């Protein structure tokens, strides 16, 4: 399989097919990245598009020193930060940020989401980058510009905290817990 970095260099050299392959490889995971952070499927789709537009615009500046995966999530993190700033500004001007979409969302997903929201924001980001984007500790350290040992210790802390939250919730609603940890090869319907 051609590496992402080789594809990016091919794209720099003018290959449309290389870009299309990168798009196919990362579209779904970037969509999940935005969805989980913004709880908004429409914005998630827009921001996936903006990420790839940024790649196209900056292609000539890409250097293979960075993994394409880290590079893409770096762009995505900046877009999420900008989106959050936008909501913050609009809420100080009296507009409220859109409510997270919960229609049709299974209860166990809401439960996991609520547990995640109890973590402090930097720890949650590290945990999400590890669990959902499956980035290595060094990728996360590079992206967030923090030492790798900090990544490890925060990840450890947030996993233990999360375990505590999930266990206490499970005591009050054991059926929900069972539902969340059941094997689910293809669970549907978050929107």
């Amino acid at each position, binding site marked *: 399989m*051609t590496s992402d970095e080789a594809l990016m260099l091919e794209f720099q050299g003018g290959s*449309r097919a*290389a870009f299309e392959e990168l798009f196919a490889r990362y579209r779904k995971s970037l969509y999940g990245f935005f969805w989980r952070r913004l709880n908004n499927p429409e914005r998630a789709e827009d921001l996936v598009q903006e990420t790839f537009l940024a790649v*196209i615009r900056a292609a000539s500046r890409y250097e293979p020193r960075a993994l394409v995966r880290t590079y893409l999530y770096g762009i995505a993190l900046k877009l999420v930060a900008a989106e959050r700033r936008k909501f913050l500004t609009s809420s100080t001007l009296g507009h409220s940020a859109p409510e997270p979409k919960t229609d049709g969302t299974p209860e166990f*997903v809401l439960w*996991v989401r609520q547990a995640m929201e109890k973590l402090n924001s930097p720890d949650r980001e590290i945990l999400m980058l590890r669990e959902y984007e*499956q980035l*290595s500790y060094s990728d996360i350290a590079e992206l967030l510009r923090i030492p790798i040992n900090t990544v*490890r210790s925060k990840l450890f802390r947030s996993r233990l905290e999360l375990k505590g939250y999930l266990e206490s919730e499970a005591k009050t609603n054991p059926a929900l*817990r069972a539902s969340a940890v059941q094997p689910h090869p293809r669970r549907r319907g978050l929107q």
Partner: protein
Amino acid sequence: MSTNRHPIEQEELMAYLDGELPTDQATEAMSHLELCPECRTLAADFQDVSQTLMAWEVESPEVGIPSEINVALGERLQKRKAAKVNWSNLENRVITRRWLWAGALAIVCVAVGLQLTLTSRNRNEDRSTVYPSMASIEQYLMPDRNTEIAMARSAAPEAISSDAKILVLGWRGYEPANQGKNGFVCMVERSWMSPFNSAEFWNPRVRVPMCFNPAAARSILPLTIKRTEMVLAGMSKAQMIDSIRAGFANKELLAPEPGAMCYMMSRAGYLNDTLGHYVPHLMFYFPLTDKSSWGADLAGSPVTLNPQFRDGPEPITEFVIPVGKWSDGTAAPVM
């Protein structure tokens, strides 16, 4: 958990489960985990948290490349093409009108090319000087036999490796640790199974857990045994290459049997300084085969041609296919 009773910290255990520990620590963690129920409980807790988080699955709508991206893409590619054409026109004018410039340009190109060649050669030299020759044998051996056995078994899921024969590296070569029942053979390969021209051929940190199926145990494993014996006997690379060629010529070494494959699904392995733990994968062996027959290395294909035997004395083609889980059932990192 007291650190007096546990040779590894809880954070290290987590890092091990994430495939983030260096080989030596990973094997230590793996061995300890087998013996310590308390740590297994903690490991199960971590895995439980990960599994619970996976409940938050997001299904992406199936869409092609949006038109806005297509337009931007088209513009960029066109600009690039135009830039190429303009450069080519400019170059033509320079060449036709000013021969002197062309000469100067040629000189600059030669100088730059020479510089690049030297830089590239220096880089290669720098890299190969890290492991220029064989280290002491102790550095390739694992101090604890049980750790090596556990690491070898971790190459394949337990259902396969628990009944497999295990080989352990000793001073004179690989030695059997048991007999095995299912025809599979698990072992930990060392750096000298890299291509002969690899800069890491003598890297003593390399530990590659592998579990050969019966067909590969009969036809591929003898190569590992032979190379290892030659290395431990102090033969030079040139002597080893000659000996392998002779081995194939006189049928001492065999072509891969049909169906020869091996499991490489250990999270504790260390393939080399570039790949680290890499990702769990399977390998399939054939007599020399065109990679296109498997669609290897094509865009979107999960099949890769492994360079292990490329341009080497072994007439073998080896394909690699990544799989989604480590042998312990945990999810693998995305490639």
